[in-house]
């Protein structure tokens, strides 16, 4: 049973604040992903949980024990590093065995444990090699093995896949997910790759400038971002943003595109926003846009805009189309854009409920009144 509770944790180096007061509760068996751009403090947070960095203030609990000032070895954790950090002079066997030796595990028990881990990770034939004789993927496995062999309650993974090539990264990602399901241990996983975050996480914590922007299950973080930063950080290609002006006339809500004032649509939903005539930022995910054609005309709940095709990038499974509305670039995922060519004037449609509105000043999300009522009822 290993929950992790972080209470009012702070880290600063002199006047430089790296982590602002942070509270996180990780459930037993959960895989929490810390994601954010470099310098957001995610690795520092992980180091503090590991005990490698001192806390400035606040508390860290693993299970029922406060570990804030404990030595890393007394926290019942294991960590996998981005560089793997294998001991260069030791063989794979010695690398894996080192932690057990330090904990004075008897030789037979060590051999048994190494055998088990080698079988689990299929590194049996590598045991007598040195790290310099291993490929990147093999080193990654050995680093995992070194963490697994001690059977700790908590695993900390610091960008463990960043040094692998694209194909191997996807493979290892799946393996880590399988391992997590099989072991059922609590894991904290740091990455800057939002796809890794989405695919692996039980919950995602999106961080920026030492603060958590949103902490929720991947689906909610993706569909219901709490602010502009989360909306643009999660998702690839990124969410499209366009400045709009919202006005109410006789109970109807009218949305006008600021860069293209001639394009205006009426919204059936009411915006829970105190003032009329304010500028907002409207966000739409690339996959929520579709091409309007004679065979597939716009429905009544869809807003329609005209745009010009700039570039078409086929990726095989789908085509990525770069459009522009006035001088604002818009990305759009289409199943088949082969009948389009650059320079075409097209109509694109998007369901009204796919709009996400943000305040341009505070960058916070502004919700439809209906959504608010629903969520407060639930």
């Amino acid at each position, binding site marked *: 049973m290993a929950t992790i509770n972080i209470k009012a944790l702070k880290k600063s180096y002199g006047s430089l604040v790296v982590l602002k007061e942070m509270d996180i509760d990780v459930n037993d068996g959960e895989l929490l992903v810390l994601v954010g751009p470099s310098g957001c403090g995610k690795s520092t947070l992980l180091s503090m949980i590991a005990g490698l960095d001192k806390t400035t203030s606040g508390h860290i609990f693993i299970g029922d024990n406060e570990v804030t000032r404990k030595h890393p070895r007394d926290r019942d954790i294991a960590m996998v590093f981005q*560089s793997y950090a294998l001991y260069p002079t030791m063989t794979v066997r010695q690398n894996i065995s080192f932690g057990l030796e330090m904990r004075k595990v008897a030789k037979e028990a060590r051999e048994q444990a190494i055998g088990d881990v080698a079988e689990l990770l299929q590194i049996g034939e590598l045991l007598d090699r*040195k790290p310099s004789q291993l490929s990147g993927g093999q080193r990654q496995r050995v680093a995992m093995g070194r963490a697994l062999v001690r059977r700790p309650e908590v695993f900390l993974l610091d960008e463990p896949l960043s040094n692998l090539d694209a194909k191997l990264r996807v493979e290892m990602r799946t393996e880590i997910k399988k391992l997590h399901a099989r072991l059922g241990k609590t894991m904290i996983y740091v990455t800057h790759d939002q796809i890794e975050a989405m695919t692996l996480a039980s919950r995602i914590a999106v961080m920026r400038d030492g603060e958590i922007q949103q902490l929720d299950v991947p689906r909610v973080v993706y569909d219901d971002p709490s602010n502009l930063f989360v909306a643009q950080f999660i998702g690839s290609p990124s969410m499209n943003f366009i400045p709009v002006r919202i006005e109410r006339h006789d109970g109807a809500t009218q949305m006008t595109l600021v860069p293209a004032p001639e394009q205006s649509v009426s919204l059936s939903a009411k915006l829970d926003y105190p003032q009329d005539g304010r500028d907002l930022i409207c966000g739409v995910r690339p996959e929520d846009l579709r091409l309007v054609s004679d065979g597939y005309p716009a429905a009544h709940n869809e807003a329609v805009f005209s745009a010009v095709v700039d570039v078409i990038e086929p990726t095989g499974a789908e085509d990525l189309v770069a459009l522009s509305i006035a001088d604002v670039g818009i990305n759009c995922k289409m199943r088949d854009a082969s009948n389009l060519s650059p320079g075409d004037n097209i109509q694109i449609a998007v369901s009204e409920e796919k709009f996400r509105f943000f305040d341009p000043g505070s960058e916070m999300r502004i919700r439809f009144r209906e959504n608010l009522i629903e969520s407060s009822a639930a």
Partner: protein
Amino acid sequence: MTIATTEQTLPSSQELGAMFWRFVLYAGLVLLGFFFIVPLAIVLLTSLRGQEEILKNGVLALPSEVSLRAWWVAFNESCVGTDCRGMAPYFWNSVKLVIPATVISTALGAITGYALTKYKFRGSEFFFAATIFGIFLPAQLFLLPTAQLLGLLSATNIWGLVLIHNLYGLAFTTLFFRNFYVQIPDEIISAARIDGAGFFAVFWRIIVPLSPPIIVVTVIWQFTHIWNEFLYGATFTTGTDLPITAALYAVTGPKGGIRDYGVEAAAVVIAALPTLAVYIVAGKYFVRGLTSGSLKG
């Protein structure tokens, strides 16, 4: 085509100029090489000649008859002051001095270098800078305070010198090890700490096995410096405690009196032999250790 071939057979004036400068360069290098090897060659040759022959033919001459007499005399019968037991006791003095001084200062440098890079503490950079400052202080500066210290410890002997060379050498050895350990990724140390290793377990199991290149460099450096050191040896020891460099200054032929050039030359070679041997045996490791960069496993 024809132009190209003539260009190949007849070098242009530019190429001729380059050849000329190359010739000048090599001639200069040969001359310099000769200049540096001549003293050693003369000493070696002189040590192989007899006393009468040297007196008859002068110092700068090839041996007419090669003899190891001077070597034997220098090692066993030459006099330092009134002590006519040869260079041998002083040679062993230096050995007794150089081994503990080298081993201890190297070991201490490894630990301080490790602590200064991998267990940084508030002010560790200042400590490092202060330690390194010791390198730039001239040895004469320490003569008086060191004399008082050794007097206080009643250690005006070989063991006093061991202590002094350890203290003075620590600045160099710390610098060497610190600069080497800076390249070891900190993540390896973090991994070992999470695996349960403490300060000394990390040192012995992770750091020391990575250290042979820099250990070789440090040992060679310390060995040659301590062996060749003269000022402290001459100042802080007396009589039969002199290291070989200090004894060499006062060496004369057997029974004293007349200068025996052959014996003096042989004594010089004997005094220089260990450092020469160390360079010849381990010189390539020295260069390799100094230039070794990557530790990526």
